[in-house]
């Protein structure tokens, strides 16, 4: 069962191997976030957004033959609008980053914890003890997920109404296997010796 605690290269463990709400005697097996391609999408969007004002100015200048003012009220307004736009896209980026960074799924030797940040004012924390887990499965859907090896991991309990989803995590099959191993190990420790 040593494999349960072995680190996986692409599943980044938290530096301190700690998370908010952790019990003192609880050991973190892994802590995962969404795949890096999710944040990569935000970065690409941010880079493209930097070129939008330039494209607008080029269209105004070449297609509509608009003389870009270099002084006067129109110039001041234009500088402030562009400045606000750039501040805004960076603010949007940091917001998306925080949303990404605070969505985590943790497997410990006692339970599975899901912490999800939805927007600025909603944070959901849910947990499932290992002895309640009935089934673990993974799903890779689509070309991008297949190529980059990421997808969802579903952790189900005996009752159908409880299901955990590790969304868009790296190496979902391996994550599912580690969760299943942890559940198995937990069950073994609960069986009294004959």
């Amino acid at each position, binding site marked *: 069962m040593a494999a349960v605690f072995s680190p996986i290269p692409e599943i980044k463990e*938290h*530096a*301190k191997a*700690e*998370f*908010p709400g952790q019990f003192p005697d609880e050991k973190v097996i892994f802590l995962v976030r969404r795949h890096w391609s999710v944040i990569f999408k935000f970065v690409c969007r941010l880079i493209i957004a930097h070129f939008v004002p330039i494209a607008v100015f080029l269209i105004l200048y070449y297609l*509509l*033959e*608009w*003389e870009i*003012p270099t002084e*006067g*009220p*129109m110039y*001041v*307004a234009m*500088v*402030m609008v562009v*400045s*606000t736009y*750039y*501040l*805004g896209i*960076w*603010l949007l*980026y*940091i*917001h998306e*980053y*925080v949303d990404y*960074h*605070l969505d*985590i799924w943790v497997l410990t030797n006692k339970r599975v914890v899901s*912490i999800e*940040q939805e927007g*600025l004012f909603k*944070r959901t924390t849910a947990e499932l003890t290992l002895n309640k887990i009935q089934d673990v499965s993974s799903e890779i859907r689509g070309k991008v997920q297949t190529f980059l090896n990421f997808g969802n991991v579903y952790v189900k309990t005996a009752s159908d109404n409880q299901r955990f989803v590790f969304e868009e995590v790296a190496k979902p099959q391996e994550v599912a296997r580690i969760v299943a191993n942890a559940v198995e190990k937990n069950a073994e420790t609960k069986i009294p010796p004959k």
Partner: protein
Amino acid sequence: MLIPYYSFGILYLVILAIFLFFLFLNMYHLVRFGFFDFSGKISTFLFISAWVIIFFFTWLLLKDVNWLDTFDMFGEILGDINLSFLPE
């Protein structure tokens, strides 16, 4: 209608105050929930650097503006708009 240049500045500061409020909330979440790790610090550093650069260029482009001057809203701004590209 005569409008002082500093009215643009006031509007800019109001928008900036709203942005700072959202920035505070984001930073609060990052620090409060205990994940202000290396990646969080790098992203925050990049973000602050970007904002500093934007502020610097904004200041550079607007440093010579006399904010107490006034302009005629309908004469200088709306009157300058060239609408010749629109179909007659």
